[in-house]
């Protein structure tokens, strides 16, 4: 899926993570993050490996697997990789593509600065992580 810079910014404006950003800020996000593509069956995050990144899905789908057991699927607009970076620990799950994947990628060391530059994105991320925790605790109880 080849998007022109304008189309990419249009798409980002529709993702909840970036919903509070102005157009110039969205353009900056599009320049700060790099577009990547991965074939079906490839691991993007690897359980126990160092040096990971932060990813926002533009198209396609991934499965999250812990010890080879699938626990969730993520699609367009979802993001992953932030937990490992924020905690400074290798991922506790594999993230494997189940459909041809098109993502925006940010290297791990850049995430903190990125979130400080865009506190609106940090707030949206915080809400999403809180929702995950809430759902996980409801599932347990």
């Amino acid at each position, binding site marked *: *899926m*080849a*998007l*022109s*810079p*304008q189309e*990419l910014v249009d798409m980002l404006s529709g993702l909840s993570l970036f919903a509070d950003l*102005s*157009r*110039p*800020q969205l*353009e*900056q996000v*599009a*320049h*700060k993050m790099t*577009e*990547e*593509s*991965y*074939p*079906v*069956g*490839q*691991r993007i995050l*690897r*359980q*126990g*490996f*160092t*040096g*990971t*990144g932060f990813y926002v899905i533009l198209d396609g789908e991934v499965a999250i697997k812990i010890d080879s057991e699938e626990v969730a699927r993520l699609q367009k607009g979802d993001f992953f990789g932030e937990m490992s970076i924020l905690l400074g620990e290798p991922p506790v799950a*594999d993230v494997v593509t189940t459909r*041809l994947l*098109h993502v925006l*990628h*940010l*290297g*791990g*060391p*850049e995430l903190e600065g990125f979130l400080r530059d865009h506190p609106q994105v940090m707030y949206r991320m915080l809400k999403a992580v809180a929702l995950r925790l809430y759902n996980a605790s409801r599932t347990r109880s």
Partner: protein
Amino acid sequence: MVVVGSGPGGLQTSYYLRHLGIDHAVISADPSPGGMFRRFPFFQRLLSWTKPYGPVPREDRFYQWFDWNSLLAEEPESKAIMPTLMDGSSSFPSRPEMELNLATYAQRTGLRVRYDCRWESTRRDGERFVLQTSDGEYRCQVAIFAVGIAEPYKPDTPGFEHVAHYADTRSPATYAGKRLFICGKENSGFELATGLLQWAQRIVLCSPRPAKLSVNTHSLLGVRARYIQPVEDQILGGGVFMLNASINRIERLGSGYRVLCSRSEGGPELAVDADEVIAATGFVCPLRDLPDLGVSVYGRSQLPSMTNYWESATLPGIYFAGTIGQGVSGMKKYGLPANSGAVHGARYNARTMVFHVAQRHFGVEQPRPVVEPSRLVEALLEEATHAPELWNQKSYLARSFSLDSGKGILDEGIVPLADFVDTEGSAAVAIAVETDDTGDIHPAVYVREQGRPAVETLLSSQPLHDFRTAEHRAQLSSLLSGVTAGAVR
């Protein structure tokens, strides 16, 4: 087989196909070898070093780490051509020297290329591909496209149609006394700014995000040290300005231009007048009708989606070599990309891909020499210390050894690291060189037990990058003790 392109990627691919005895044709729209180096870079020096006086003889494989610009060959007379053509004024070859290097390689290796033969369209005919060219049809089972990221790209923002692209840059003297506005803050923008520093009256560089500098990213990502002078001029208030802004539109203003932009940090629209505007906004892959045939592409450069062996992820049998290979991200640890967009990375990708294509499509197996168990640790540490493939393609290419209980330890050569760690095959070990977020360079060892995913272990760094120490030997021996037991029985 057909290879399209006669730049470094096409030449390197053809060389190793011929080395393995695989019949193929090479076609090129150009009249002579060299690809992009027939024109670029404008300001006449490359960003890739060739250090004529390395610590090992030039025919030694390990010398390649000191010479990023020669293509690979097996015959002594075709190795390390670049340093023999440089005039000693810089460790960065000039563009004409690089073009001569590639022409000399093509001539010495006797590669046969059909020049002035333009690939025009592509279609399927059963299991085969048919390439329509200006010189008739070429039919093949496998096609490798090494056509570069060569088509100038300008965004569709209003007014960009009036301005020049980087590829249209004129001779420096014609910018004397002009107010110059450069759209883009990557290396091509800074190359122009550096080259025109002594000619332009004022230079504005503009893009939405601040410029990254390679000395800060600990990689070739970002503006290279060679082009850093405009940054210092900006700091000193010397007529260079860097705007973090997105361009809303560009208007004609007399014989010049008015650029209207929104600053990333907010505020009212800013108008900047300039005599010349140059769009250093990159290039796209000239893939012609391949997307219509099923090749999925992505990103601003319209790179193909590829597997770890540079095959189209959506159209099997179509491969890519040369700078297009940067579309395969690999492990990209800490966000640091490999050097697949440059000759010093792409030459190893091409060789690795050819070995894969030869085995998969033509049944040609590579020799896999047996390694004495007592030599394994030393072989791995020697690779981490010297192997140019590992140093040029950090966290991307690895040296691997299979640990098969029936066959002993076999040298599997250079493989894509992402493929190694994601393939749950037989027991094996691979070593790579990696850089972390502090810039620390160290070996990383990946051990795969039979039918299980690989496990990563980072070895410690060493101040002089020589990992053949007692500490490294002990660490690696302990790591391998369980997994090699089967192979040495």
